[in-house]
């Protein structure tokens, strides 16, 4: 049992020692990196029958720039997101848990495609996961 606890403690403390010098935005590859991730996300969505119909009639260019700005703002990229809140953007659409998961999966695949390291992916997902309650069943 002691060994088990030691192993867990080791893994947890080993991590806190590292001082991150770069912002999440920079680790995502900065402006170019985030642009590429969002572009690939849109490509993935366009091929995903679970969600592609939800984007019919959506101004994709507006969606793209809005999302790029939003990711920049939640990843300490120095942007101030001036678009509508996540709640307002999604209100009235009754987006489902299935659709939310589908978008997250497409985002993960987009980050994999751009070779974003696991730890960086996780940090961005942690930021975006907070929006679940504002997006789903609204």
């Amino acid at each position: 049992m002691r060994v088990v606890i030691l192993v867990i403690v080791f893994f947890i403390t080993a991590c806190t020692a590292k001082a991150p010098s770069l912002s999440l935005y920079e680790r995502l590859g900065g402006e170019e990196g985030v642009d590429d991730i969002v572009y690939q996300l849109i490509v993935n969505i366009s091929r995903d029958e679970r969600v592609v119909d939800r984007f019919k009639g959506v101004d994709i260019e507006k969606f793209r720039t809005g999302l790029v700005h939003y990711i920049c703002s939640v990843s300490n990229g120095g942007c101030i997101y001036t678009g509508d809140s996540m709640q307002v953007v999604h209100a009235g659409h009754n987006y489902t848990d299935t659709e939310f998961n589908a978008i997250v999966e497409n985002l993960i695949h987009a980050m994999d495609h751009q070779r974003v390291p696991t730890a960086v992916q996780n940090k961005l997902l942690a930021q975006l996961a907070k929006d679940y309650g504002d997006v789903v069943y609204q």
Partner: protein
Amino acid sequence: MKKYLLVMICLLGAGFVSAAENRSRIIATGAATTIDGSAGGGIVPMAALSGYGAREESGGVAFASYVHVPDYTMSAVGGSWSWRNRVEFSLADQRLEHPTLSAALGVPLQDIRQSVAGVKVRLLGDILYSKWPQLSAGVMYKHNHDFTIPGAAGAKRDSDSEAYLAASKVFLGGAMGYNLLVNGVARYTRANQIGLVGFGGDKNDSRRWYAEASAGIFYNKHLLFGAEFKQKPDNLSFAGEDDWQTLFAAWFPNKKLALVAAYVDLGEVATLPNQDGWYLSVQGSF
């Protein structure tokens, strides 16, 4: 053993042709399957429901697991089906072989079979997305088919039900950027060795609350390393019963398949001490 291998091969095959890739929850959030049939690790369940169905979808899993310690082997096969990430129905069939114990007791009996039926309900939360852990409650009904040895050992009954509450959360990037899984369970039971040695005993015959926990770190979205701890009753004066622990590696190559390997420490089991060994499990999702 041969039958068991066959089941494993079938599961691997089923995994490759299954539709789990079309279910929407994120890879590994369906967890593996415990020897009792509920979604979780190897010996400790989780609040996660099996399969990859999101709240508009349903799906399930089939599994086969094998435990090998010095004086016992156990195989478990079964499956579960989860409706809309709300309710999980599970079945498991366990077979414990106890050659050393048979020889010591001078009995021809070689194994003990147990069937387990379970229902688990996700009460609230989402293991990935909600601020608070996903919380689920479950009940299990267990029936021991070979009660001769458990009865002689002092167990009071061959069938019983038990209940548990599980809280699970994945902290995204929670451990140096890696995803951290934390899981706690409170189980209300009087099972001896999870029911393989019956239920209740001369020292204690009432259900009590026992703590179980597991934790792990995802090296990436496919690979989880972790540990489990399971506090257990000690109802029989015939033999001491120890808590169980595992150290495991779980591999989720895709949403169809999961493989788990573990080192297990079962302590003293029915008078035979130092039962530590290994565990293998394969799960196919559909």
